[in-house]
């Protein structure tokens, strides 16, 4: 295989999590790349839904925004956004939801709202968007987030969306219908929840990453599973497909737009 960046490795690792005809609620950035990579390689039947209202898109390039025109043109249909959230997400019709965040804690709870106090933040982040209800309703959640002690924190400044809350079944007791975060895909490998405590533990590493690197990147004492899998190096097919997708996307986004005068 050719050399690949950690972003590419994360994208490939996430794509591999997607199988068959799963219905994916897709966010912009790495999740969008991962979903489309899966669709273009091993999972052509994957159904991609964007919160803007596009259902079953088969875009040839990645959108920069969540509502780009390519999404509408290649969709099975486009519905009003409120229906995406009520008739699809809330109705339990989403298999896999993707989330990112600025902070994550050991139980997979996420913050994308503020750093510092809510009323007087040191850094105001974009906010919740679809996250609270994706976290609540999707059958499974995949979190994609680069690790550092500033992002993998002991204590969130604000809980925007629920992972396993305080763990040990707290999420299920809260009445959340969805299953919670199945995996956190980060730039050293993958964390998954312990079956009982629901604390995230290191269960897989990229071939060129180490446990020490993982521990250094995480702001809490990282639990390490007894057995750590190695995430197979991206194949040539995976990388070629991803490179071509990214190249098409760059080319499309660089195309000058005629100002509509």
């Amino acid at each position, binding site marked *: 295989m050719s050399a690949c960046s950690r972003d590419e490795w994360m994208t490939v690792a996430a794509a591999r999590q997607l199988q068959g005809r799963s219905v994916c609620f897709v966010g*912009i950035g790495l999740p969008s790349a991962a979903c489309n990579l899966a669709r273009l390689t091993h999972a052509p039947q994957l159904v991609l839904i964007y*919160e*803007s*209202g*596009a259902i079953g898109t088969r875009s040839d390039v990645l*959108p*920069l*925004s*969540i*509502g*780009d*025109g390519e*999404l*509408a*043109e290649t969709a099975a249909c*486009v*519905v*009003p*956004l*409120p229906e995406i*959230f*009520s008739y699809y*997400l*809330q109705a339990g019709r989403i298999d896999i939801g993707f989330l990112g965040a600025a902070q994550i804690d050991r139980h997979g*709870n996420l913050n994308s*709202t503020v750093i510092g106090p*809510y*009323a007087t*933040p*040191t*850094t*105001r982040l*974009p*906010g*919740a*968007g*679809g*996250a*609270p*209800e994706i*976290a*609540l309703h999707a059958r499974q959640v995949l979190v994609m987030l680069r690790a550092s002690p500033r992002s993998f924190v002991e204590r969130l400044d*604000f*809980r*925007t*969306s*629920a992972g396993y809350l305080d763990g040990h079944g707290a*999420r299920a007791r*809260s*009445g*959340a*219908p969805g299953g919670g975060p199945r995996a956190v895909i980060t730039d050293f490998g993958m964390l998954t929840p312990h079956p009982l405590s629901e604390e995230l533990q290191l269960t897989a590493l990229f071939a060129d990453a180490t446990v020490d690197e993982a521990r250094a990147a995480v702001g809490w004492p990282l639990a390490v599973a007894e057995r750590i899998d190695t995430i197979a190096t991206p194949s040539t097919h995976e990388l070629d497909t991803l490179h071509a997708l990214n190249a098409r996307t760059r080319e499309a*986004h*660089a195309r*000058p*737009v*005629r*100002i*509509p*005068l």
Partner: protein
Amino acid sequence: MILPLSDAIERFVSDGASVALEGFTHLIPFAAGHEIIRQRRRELHLIRMTPDLIYDQMIGMGCARKLTFSWGGNPGVGSLHRLRDAIEQQWPRPLELDEHSHAGMAAAFCAGAARLPFGTLRGYLGTDLPAHNPNIRRVACPFTGEMLAAVPALNPDVTIVHAQRADQAGNVAIEGILGAAREAALAAKTLIVTVEEIVDELPPAMNAIVLPHWIVSAVVPCRGGAYPSYAQGCYARDNAFYRRWDAIARERASFLAWMDEHVLGTHDHHAFLAGLQQADA
């Protein structure tokens, strides 16, 4: 009623009004937002799921007292620096926040469109948002006893949306990604629609998206009115402009200079677009 943009804003958007410029990535009514800035409206309660560049500009220019929103970033690029500056540094003035999730705002627009006082959703569980927003409450199902989340209906004084076309009678046809624009339009007390073109008659639409004339207060002909957002079938989103905005808006001085030159310094949207075209050339 067909009106020029400046007349529509002057007539319908008053200081202190609650105003929703909707359109999700697609069909964002930039021209209308710029005209509100030109007319120096103040104390507005701005409502939008995704404030986007247009509210970054309006907030930075001091039009807004309050913001109801659910996601305030520059999609695929990063922060809205003027929104951040308003919240973090109260510049140019403090901004009151009414913050929701997308699902909550969608339910609030739907309730508004139906003229119900509240919307219901199974949401806001395990999040700190309700602790900071008294507009997120609970309601018990009168059949099962289950507790659900409730949000108050959104009924903006004025909603402004952009669409591809209207007919002379004022019927409006929209194609492509809708976001919550249709519900925000139906929830409005006054509805202004800027359009790419006005035709004699729309074809019978069957199941297509139409806002019928008698819910539309004013139709405004405004070619390119969604730029740098896009209008499906007319022009594409200017992703490069969205990226450039990050640098323009990062500092107060560069932001103000840009707004002075391109918005306050232009007479209307046509001049705004012409100025950008010249700068590009």
